[in-house]
């Protein structure tokens, strides 16, 4: 199986889906001539031409709405946000137009669209460029929120998202673009709403997604060296949540730690805690803990930034607490 970067896996998904379906097009800032701010769309303009790879002015609200309008009459737009931080300007179109058009119209008008771009903190980009908004979008009925952690999942989930008939919030890890992994050639589809056990274990369940999967795996290795067996579950999609896999894991390990980049208050992990306590309360041997980003805007200073971010060490500590070892 070929080894690709996460970036090239996404590029491959875009290329394959655009070749497969003439209704699929890519629109956003710098996606064409510039080849993508993060080079995810490299080569697509040359291959598919300017009708299908469309550079826009810097008007997130406007081009998100253009995408929704095009989807309402049957095209399958992929709207790239240079980062999800900028999508805040477009949130009216994502929430008020895309998410509820099908419902308001009693099923007459669907919006098969993918909004995608990098999310989460990179390195020292400061408060306005280092944010995780998955909980905000996952809050909205009508949206699905997809957050792949590996190159193979990035490809398989993006292809599924493009073929999905509902609006998808597809969040790519900004720090994951250069990571490498084996990616199946051609028709590789990962279903939306199915979690993946990235590492099996039996003493504690680590629930994570996107960038936090690699942190959880590192933590699991450290724990393994100390004789603690952690199961790492990559949720892959925040909405819908794969509760079957989540409950199955908790029923085996009886302890859970959730690792998320975003802020703690009403974060995605809070929803998971609610589901677990309601679904498998009797299986729990300890309160569920969450490792989250600090409840502050992201500081620029690198030491402060490190303190604000989740890390394998913080995960190890949380695991020891749920095992009552600390």
């Amino acid at each position: 199986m070929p080894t690709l970067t996460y970036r090239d896996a996404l590029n491959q998904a875009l290329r394959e889906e655009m070749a497969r379906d003439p209704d699929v097009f890519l629109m956003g800032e710098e996606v064409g001539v510039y080849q993508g701010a993060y080079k995810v769309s490299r080569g697509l303009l040359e291959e598919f031409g300017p009708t299908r790879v469309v550079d826009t002015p810097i008007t997130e609200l406007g081009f998100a709405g253009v995408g929704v309008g095009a989807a309402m009459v049957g095209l399958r737009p992929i709207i790239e946000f240079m980062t999800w931080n900028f999508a805040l300007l477009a949130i009216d179109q994502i929430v008020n137009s895309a998410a509820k058009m099908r419902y308001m119209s009693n099923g007459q008008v669907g919006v098969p669209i993918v909004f995608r771009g990098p999310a989460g903190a990179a390195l020292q980009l400061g408060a306005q460029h280092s944010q995780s908004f998955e909980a905000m979008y996952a809050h909205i009925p009508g949206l699905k929120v997809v957050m792949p952690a590996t190159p193979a999942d990035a490809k398989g989930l993006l292809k599924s998202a493009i073929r999905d008939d509902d609006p998808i919030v597809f969040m790519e890890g900004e720090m994951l673009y250069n990571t490498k992994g084996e990616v199946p050639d051609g028709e590789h589809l990962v279903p939306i709403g199915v979690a993946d056990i990235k590492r099996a274990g039996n003493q504690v369940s680590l629930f994570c997604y996107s960038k936090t999967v690699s942190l959880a795996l590192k933590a699991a290795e450290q724990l393994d060296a100390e004789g603690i067996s952690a199961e790492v579950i990559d949720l892959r999609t925040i909405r819908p949540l794969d509760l079957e896999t989540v409950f199955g894991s908790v029923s085996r390990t009886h302890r859970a730690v959730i690792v998320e980049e975003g802020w703690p208050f009403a974060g995605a992990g809070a929803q998971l805690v609610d589901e677990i306590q309601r679904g498998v309360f009797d299986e729990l041997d300890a309160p569920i803990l969450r490792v989250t980003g600090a409840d502050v805007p992201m500081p620029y200073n690198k030491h402060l930034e490190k303190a604000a971010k989740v890390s394998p060490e913080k995960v190890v500590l949380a695991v020891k607490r749920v095992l009552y070892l600390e």
Partner: protein
Amino acid sequence: MATAKTARKADTRLAERYRALLRQMQLIRRFEEKAGEAYSLGKIGGFCHLYIGQEAVAVGCLSQLRPDDYITATYREHGHALARGLTPRAVMAELFGKATGCSGGKGGSMHLFDASRGFLGGHGIVGGHIPLTAGIGFAIKYREQDQVSVCFFGEAAINNGAFHEALNMAGIWKLPCIFICENNRYGMGTALDRATATWNISERAASYDMAREVVDGQDLLEVMAAMERAVVRARRPAAPTLLEIRTYRFVGHSMSDPIHGHYRTKEEVEAHRKRDPIILWGDRLKADGLIDDAGIEALDAEVKAAVLDAFEFAEQSPDPEPEALWDHVYAPTGEASGIRRQASPAALPPTPDA
């Protein structure tokens, strides 16, 4: 001789068409009056924004479209829906929130839809649907088709980012869009000159390299003529137009707003009422000998009956089934996994003593 005959036939057809437009405007007027009455009786909930006074805009503009063209509108869209051919029954039932409404009772007054007629929604966020119209225009051009994408919005939307962003892209990409600004002078209670630095709205088209016209919205023929020109520009090869159609709302912003009071005087409203688009059009048809007073009365009786029928239909129609609450949140393929039915007590685990 044959040519004279043909001309007479064409005249007859035109006369019929003109009378049909009068009927359509009168239908909207009577429909809205009935909706206002139903609202007062508590049969219509939520917000309800009536179109009385502006009828010539929707009727004139939509008379120029083909069945396969697309329309989006604001939350003051009952008139546009009726002018597009949605039945009074389907619209009234939607206002009543009934299962037989054009949006199954789940949209309401502000969210009327009929995809089969290209009527893609009343939208509730000021300006929010303008980019959608550009997107529909983008899709038409993408598929190399020749429909047009038409958007109705009020003059209060023109200071909104969505307006600028959408018109700019329509200008860059030469989209087959017609942006129709129904300038009724007030954004809710704020007069145009209190909200807009340059109040000549149509001039904004210059920023987007777009054709523009200022139109008297109380004059049906003028509206039709301007729209006809805009449609010609929009069909292939496509070019967008901004129409500023000056009109006036004879009623309050919504049912809770009195006709006059804080922000406009009785005298102002009365002065505008003298240019009632329906009376103006009726007078013109009478002057041309295309209808007489008896004809107008008969037409009015006919639309009143249609509206009464719609009212009764709406009243007698069933509410949506309780299960409809959960329908259409996601596409059928996604229903099972997408929705969190936690609001339903049945989804909660049994209590310990249950």
